[in-house]
């Protein structure tokens, strides 16, 4: 059971039926303020930040009033003092996904946001240097998108020549 502090934006939708932890569904404009209110409320650590591409699943189960978009950014916060976790799912957008960066609140999100950008192309405004982190610098495309193929090479069995 979690209650949003008074500083949180008033119309953030929360749901306890969605997940094993409580999930909050702010809009992109409420997102930064909500995380800030959680931080001031005792959630000292941002444990995880990742992106999800729901290309074909606009009909996924979401609470009333939340408009599903293709990309979602999922943030997990942890409170050491209260021993509690909370999950924040923000709908980031369809083609040009862009959300606020949490770097000024939690410097530990720097690498995680770069990873979300590298894999999905989600932009984070306010990030000090949003570059690719795991793929080579000149890689084209964002690999974890659902319309990016896995890149399987068909296996061939042929008469093996000698080495060199």
């Amino acid at each position, binding site marked *: 059971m979690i209650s949003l502090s008074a500083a949180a934006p008033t119309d953030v939708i929360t749901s306890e039926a969605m997940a094993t932890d409580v999930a909050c569904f702010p809009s992109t404009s409420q997102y930064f303020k909500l995380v800030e209110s959680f931080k001031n409320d005792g959630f000292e650590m941002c444990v995880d930040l990742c992106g999800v591409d729901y290309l074909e699943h606009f009909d996924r189960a979401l609470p009333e009033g939340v408009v599903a978009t293709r990309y979602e950014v999922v943030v997990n916060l942890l409170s050491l003092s209260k021993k509690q976790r909370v999950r924040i799912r923000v709908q980031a957008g369809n083609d040009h996904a862009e959300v606020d960066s949490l770097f000024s609140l939690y410097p530990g999100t720097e690498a995680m946001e770069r990873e979300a950008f590298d894999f999905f192309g989600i932009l984070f405004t306010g990030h000090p240097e949003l570059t690719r982190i795991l*793929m080579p610098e000149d890689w084209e495309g964002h*690999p974890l998108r659902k319309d*990016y*193929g*896995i890149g399987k090479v068909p296996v061939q069995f042929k008469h093996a020549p*000698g*080495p060199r």
Partner: protein
Amino acid sequence: MALEDLQHNFLTGQIEDLVRWARRASVWPASFGLACCAIEMMAAGAADFDLSRFGMEVFRNSPRQADLMIVAGRVSQKMAPVLRQVYDQMMEPKWVISMGVCASSGGMFNNYAIVQGVDQIVPVDVYAPGCPPSPETLMHAILTLHEQIRTGEIMKRRAEGRPTHIEESNNLWTPEVPVAVRIGTPK
């Protein structure tokens, strides 16, 4: 094994056999451990599966001082040019063992991120399968390589460019080695 070579080579052998003995008795690996296979490579160099008895316990950090590159682990697209660079820095004669299935063929990761077989980048002499290969498998691969160096098969192939096969060497003294140690693609 080394002592027998010594006696024969000093009394009757050719200089080539001496050089080949020296080359295979002190192959120095370049440390190129990438992933899980690197841990098994370290275990092979440690106490229980000692590589030092083959003269190989010194893992040289500088590729210029190394003879053998054991590519241990999966090679990603970002790492491929680095791998080639390290290989180029090694001095001739140099050998490559591809350790593990990820280095040999891409392994279980048939996707955009992994080079499907390190032989697309560097020429490989011995492939050691396993995920990860147990240190015993790695030692078998190393001994196979030693055997190839000892009989001179590697240098002959490199010079003439023909595919490997088991051939009778001119050296009359060829000890009986188990068939499993001698490799070659079927004719």
